Each structure stands twice: as structure tokens, then as C-alpha cells.
């Protein structure tokens, strides 16, 4: 059968099981859109290409399936860039498809031309410029394979307009063959055995779990490991949901805004079991003072993460789920006798240094998040956040018990991520409640996507922690810049009116007594609802490790 390039692309997407594309059409990608018009694929028109990339990302994080976004050449493609970089930093499988000017026009500064494969070289796992329509079907399959296997990540396909318009005989390509790409699977049994031995010897073990646990679906194995060796579990921001936040062994999040008991436990541990993590600076603080007494077991699918930031005693390269399964089996040979002294010490820390905040009559953002948790913990819920103080409070005060239920921009820290990511999550999980917790700064970076939510009747709930500041930056100015609030105070629009202008419901809450009823109303509604929580203006995220300090030197 003779098909045009655009038709081949869309046919491949259908064959690969793609149910939805988030995108924004334009000149160079028109041949693809023309084919999409007849396809059995849903298209969500966002109001900005960045929204499309984040929506594909949110969809992928929520469902575990690859997210697809699409944009035209030039500005369309460059508007995807932040979303692609965001997905790259957090290892999220998205496929970005961009139109490109015709091959004969490439390199001539043509209208709406941008070298998007060049631009995205450092922020994609791989990318393709399709030079020949006969390569297209193979490339699309390779792209999905690369994005979703090994350490996941974004892959971009740049499709020149004339390639998309030219015809060829379509044949389904064979299995993907990439001789330079062999993602690891099982861990080396000898390494696993050495890890088991260290675990059996440990007196004060701590599990440090990250996004790799969520990505590989290893939450059950992680829980089994923790319970078997009675090791407390601290998660990174990306690892939230990978271990139940309300589990007695949970230490919550560690690092810059981690709980004190989490950081103390890590610093005093004699064995750190690092699972699907990358020893990021937000976690380790001063690197050479991190977990000074601990031997380290590092399990990760990406060999380049081993030894990148810290030296480890045992490294196991492999898929986290499979390695943990191996490790659990290996541990059966040992009589693991967890000492109770370590448990007791941690229990004491938890009692002495709980996560807390001062209640002084003002509306506190932490209280709002606690109420959101109270009202949603017993129903299937996804919570997306933006970046800043509200994100950290969500990580601290909302106890996520399921993987993929917390959707947040970790590595890149992208303000404006939350709302479009929530839209993507809602598309992927139509029967669940999706809440976007945001700040008055972040929400305005992609607020136009409220229109997308209204347009497609996606009933996302947006909770803005409105303190009239770029709160996290203001906090740093307060603590480290002598309260010189250089350009962090925000003059905001009326968010309620804005929501209504977009066709969503808008509510405003200024007192604590109004919090619960407003949330109840919002969660009952079948429409998108925005709630403007006017909260205390100068509340800080505490505890906090000042930059460059060891993680047990915490403020607050």
C-alpha cells in the first residue's frame, strides 16, 4: 500500500498503541495533522507547545506509557524544548514529533526553520532527522523502543515537510535492531550476593529510594525489602510514591527540605542502600560529608550513574525491579536479624523532630495541603505540582501511598509544569481525581492551559497557594540576602475572575475555616475548578539545609 509520510507516521502511532497526542499544528507539520484527522487517536490541542510537552510528560508519569507531543517547525519546536529538557532530567519517556522545513530549505534560514535536532542533542536520549520516507516507520519504532526501555527518556523525531508529503510503499518494519543499544536487565549475581552480605552485616541500614523505583514499577519489591530487613526508607522527590508515605518505616523525603529524622538517619547509617537514585546535590548537600559512616550499595539501570557523584562499595547495574527481586531471593540465605536499637533511635528522632509548622491564625499553606490529603487519601488521586514552596510542602505534608500518584518536576525544576502535567494525567486517568497544587508564580507560566482543560472537559482542580511572592526565592532572600526582596513580590490578576473567563469555576479562600468546604465543593464538581488560597505571605519551607552544608545541619 502506498502511503504518504504523514500517514505512515500516524499509522505507526496507531500500531504502537498511542491513544492520545498533545499538540499544536502549524505549516510544516500539516501533512501529519492531515493524516491525524482520520486516525483513531485523540488529539488534545493545548494553548502553547510547552503545555503539550508537559501534558505528554504528565500523561507518561501518571500512566507509565510513553507520552506523545507534536509541534510544527521553528517556534513550535523550540517551545517544546523546556518540556523535553524537563522529561530528560526526570527520565520520562516522551516522544516529541516536530515538523521541519522541506529538505531543500534546511540550512538556509528558511521561514520557521530551527535546527531542533541540534538544539535538543543534549536534552534527548536520542533524536532523529528523517531524511528519507523509507526510514520513517523504522525510526518511529526505534524512537518508542529507546524512549521506554533502559533508563527512559525523551526522543525527538524531526520530520521535514516534503518527507511527510512524499509517498512510499508501507511495510511494517521488523523488530528494532540497534547494535549500540543494549539496556541492562538483571544485575550481576556476584554483585547481588555481595550486597546481600553487606545488608546482613549492617546494624543501621537506610534505604534511599528514587525515581528508578517508580519507573521500573518496583514499589512492591522495595516494600518487601524494607520490611524484610526492617530498614527505614527515605525517598527523593522523584521517589515519592515508590514507598508508602504512611508506612511505619517511611522517613518521608530526605535532603534539602527533607524531614530531620530522614537526614539524621542517613547521616548515622552504616549502610546506605541507594535504589534508582543519582545522588543529586539537593539530596546530598555537602557531598564529602554525606553519610560519612555508611557503606553504599548503589542499584541503578544507568551505569553512568554509578560512581558519578559518590564512591560506592557495591554497584549493581540493572533494572531496579529485577535486581530487588534477585536481592530478596539472595537474602533468604541470610538470617537477617534487624537490631531494635536502630528502630528505637529513629522512633525517638521522629518524636523529637516531627515535621511541623506554627499555627498562628493565618491561613497556612501546609494546612491547606493537609486538608487536600485528608479529603483525597481514600480515593484514587493524582497530585501534580509546580515548582517552589508549594511543591516542597506537598512533598512534606501529603503522604503518597501509590506510585505515579505524585507528578512533579524534580531535576529541572520547571515552573509552569503543574497544570499541563495535570491535564496529561487527567487524560491518562479519566476516572481519577487530579489535583494541581501550584503557586501564584508558577501557575502564571502556563495558565492558558485552563482553556485546554475547559475545552476537553478535563475536570482538573487547581489549588493555588497564593502568597503574593515568588515564595521560594523570597525565602532564600530572607535567609541569605538580608531580606532584600529583589523583584520577588507579585502583583497578581484576580485568579477567580481569570478562571471564570476561561470557563472554569473559581473559588477564593482566605480563612482556614473555608478550606474544607471549598475543597469539598471543588472535588464534587465535574468541571475544572481553580481555588485561590490566599495564604500567609512569608511562610518558609522548613526544615532546610543551607546550600553547601551537610544535610544534618538544618535550619528550623
Amino acid at each position: 500500500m502506498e502511503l504518504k509520510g504523514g500517514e505512515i507516521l500516524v499509522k505507526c502511532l496507531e500500531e504502537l498503541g498511542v491513544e492520545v497526542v498533545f499538540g499544536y499544528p502549524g505549516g510544516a507539520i500539516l501533512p501529519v495533522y492531515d493524516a491525524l484527522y482520520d486516525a483513531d487517536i485523540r488529539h488534545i490541542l493545548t494553548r502553547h507547545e510547552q503545555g503539550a510537552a508537559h501534558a505528554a510528560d504528565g500523561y507518561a508519569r501518571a500512566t507509565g506509557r510513553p507520552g506523545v507531543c507534536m509541534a510544527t517547525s521553528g517556534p513550535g519546536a523550540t517551545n517544546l524544548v523546556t518540556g523535553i529538557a524537563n522529561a530528560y532530567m526526570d527520565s520520562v519517556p516522551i516522544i516529541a514529533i516536530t515538523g521541519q522545513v522541506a529538505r531543500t530549505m534546511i540550512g538556509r534560514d528558511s521561514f520557521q526553520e530551527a535546527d531542533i535536532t541540534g538544539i535538543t542533542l543534549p536534552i534527548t536520549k536520542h533524536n532523529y532527522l528523517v531524511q528519507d520516507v523509507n526510514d520513517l516507520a523504522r525510526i518511529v519504532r526505534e524512537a518508542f523502543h529507546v524512549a521506554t526501555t533502559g533508563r527512559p527518556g525523551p526522543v525527538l523525531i524531526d520530520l521535514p515537510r516534503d518527507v511527510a508529503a512524499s509517498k512510499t510503499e508501507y511495510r511494517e518494519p521488523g523488530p528494532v535492531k540497534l547494535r549500540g543499544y543494549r539496556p541492562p536487565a538483571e544485575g550481576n549475581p556476584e554483585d547481588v550476593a555481595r550486597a546481600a552480605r553487606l545488608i546482613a552485616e549492617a546494624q543501621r541500614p537506610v534505604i534511599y529510594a528514587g525515581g528508578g523505583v517508580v519507573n521500573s514499577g518496583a514499589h512492591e519489591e522495595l516494600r518487601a525489602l524494607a520490611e524484610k530487613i526492617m530498614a527505614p526508607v527515605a525517598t527523593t522527590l522523584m521517589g515519592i510514591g515508590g514507598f508508602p508515605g504512611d508506612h511505619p518505616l517511611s522517613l518521608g523525603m530526605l535532603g534539602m527540605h527533607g524531614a530531620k529524622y530522614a537526614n539524621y538517619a542517613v547521616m548515622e547509617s552504616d549502610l546506605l542502600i541507594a535504589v534508582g537514585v543519582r545522588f543529586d546535590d539537593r539530596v546530598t548537600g555537602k557531598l564529602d560529608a554525606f553519610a560519612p559512616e555508611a557503606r553504599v550499595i548503589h542499584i541503578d539501570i544507568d551505569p553512568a550513574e554509578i560512581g558519578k557523584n559518590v564512591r560506592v562499595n557495591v554497584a549493581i547495574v540493572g533494572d531496579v525491579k529485577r535486581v530487588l527481586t534477585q536481592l530478596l531471593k539472595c537474602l533468604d540465605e541470610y538470617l537477617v536479624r534487624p537490631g531494635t536499637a536502630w528502630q528505637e533511635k529513629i522512633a525517638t528522632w521522629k518524636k523529637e523532630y516531627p515535621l511541623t509548622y506554627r499555627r498562628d491564625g493565618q491561613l497556612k499553606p501546609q494546612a491547606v495541603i493537609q486538608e487536600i490529603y485528608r479529603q483525597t487519601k481514600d480515593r484514587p488521586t493524582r497530585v501534580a505540582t509546580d515548582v517552589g514552596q508549594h511543591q516542597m510542602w506537598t512533598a512534606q505534608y501529603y503522604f503518597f501511598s501509590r506510585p505515579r500518584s505524585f507528578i512533579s518536576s524534580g531535576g529541572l525544576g520547571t515552573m509552569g509544569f503543574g497544570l499541563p502535567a495535570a491535564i496529561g494525567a487527567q487524560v491518562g486517568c479519566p476516572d481519577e481525581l487530579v489535583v494541581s497544587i501550584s503557586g501564584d508564580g508558577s501557575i502564571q507560566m502556563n495558565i492558558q492551559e485552563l482553556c485546554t482543560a475547559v475545552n476537553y472537559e478535563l475536570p482538573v482542580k487547581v489549588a493555588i497557594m497564593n502568597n503574593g511572592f515568588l515564595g521560594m526565592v523570597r525565602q532564600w532572600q530572607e535567609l541569605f540576602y538580608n531580606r532584600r526582596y529583589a523583584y520577588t513580590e507579585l502583583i497578581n490578576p484576580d485568579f477567580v475572575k481569570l478562571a471564570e473567563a476561561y470557563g472554569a469555576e473559581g473559588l477564593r479562600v482566605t480563612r482556614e475555616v473555608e478550606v474544607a468546604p471549598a475543597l469539598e465543593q471543588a472535588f464534587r464538581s465535574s468541571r475544572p475548578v481553580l481555588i485561590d488560597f490566599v495564604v500567609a505571605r512569608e511562610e518558609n519551607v522548613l526544615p532546610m539545609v543551607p546550600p553547601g552544608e551537610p544535610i544534618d545541619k538544618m535550619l528550623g
Partner: protein
Amino acid sequence: MRHTLAVLVENNPGVLARVAGLIRRRGFNIDSLAVGPTNDPTISRMTIVVEGDDLVLEQVIKQLRKLIEVIKVSDLTAEEHVDRELVLIKVKAEPAQRSQIIQLVDVFRAHIVDVGRETLIVEATGDEEKIRAIEEILRPFGIKEFVRTGKVAMLRGSRTTSVDGE
């Protein structure tokens, strides 16, 4: 310490940019980089000389291996290997000095590949030491131009750095 890496890559457009870009953005220093197709036209081979301690080198190799189009990375530094570089040197050569230059070039088993009215082009092949020596010897005559290919390297004996090699 300097390391010599043999990198087999898919012979695709853009692969050089991927490798060079990766090395630059991860903050590694390239001393030299030579690239060309192998006997298998779908595969190119790069010889990259990088400077750095063992930790740096381990990261370079691991990051290179993550590139989809990189098929194989081998560190030849600690292995028995041959490495060679080719240079072209345009040297000032008044008629009176020509025979002296030609004699010196002969000693190095190098060649004169162009004879101009006031210049000669010398072609020399060898390892780093030899290239440095010939540069020193010719400098007093006046080097007008100097170009080198960058190092290429190969394991000694029957072992190979090929896709199927160990």
C-alpha cells in the same frame, strides 16, 4: 593522564556532533579526535585522546556508551598498541638550505611532498615523540604552516577493536 579511546560509531550524519557535544558539555577536554569510516562502510571509527584522571575517564566512557549510535568504546591506553599521527609541515627553504632539510627529513623517514620556490612541504608519520622531534628540527628553518591529523591507534597482535572483537 592522557587516554586514547577507540570509539566505533554508526556512520550516520550528526554522530560526530553527538560525540563532540557530549564530551564538551560534560566538561571533558579533548586533546585530539580523528574520525573516518572503517572497512565496514556503516561503521566509523573515532580515535579520541582525552585528558583526565581515572574517574573522569570512567565517566567519559560511560557517557559515550549511552549514546545510541556509539557501538563500542575501548580504552587502549593500558594495552599494547600502535599509535600514529600524520603531519604536514610547510617550512621555509631558501635554495641554499634545501639539501640540509632534505637530509634531515630523510633521517626521520619523512617525505617532501611539495617543492615551492621558497618552501617545502614535509609529510611525516609517527608517534607523538617523533612528530615533536621533527617539529623541533625544522623550527630553525622557519615553519610557515603546520597541520596534524590527530592520533589514530590500534591494538598490537591478533586482538582487535571491532564490533565482534573482545
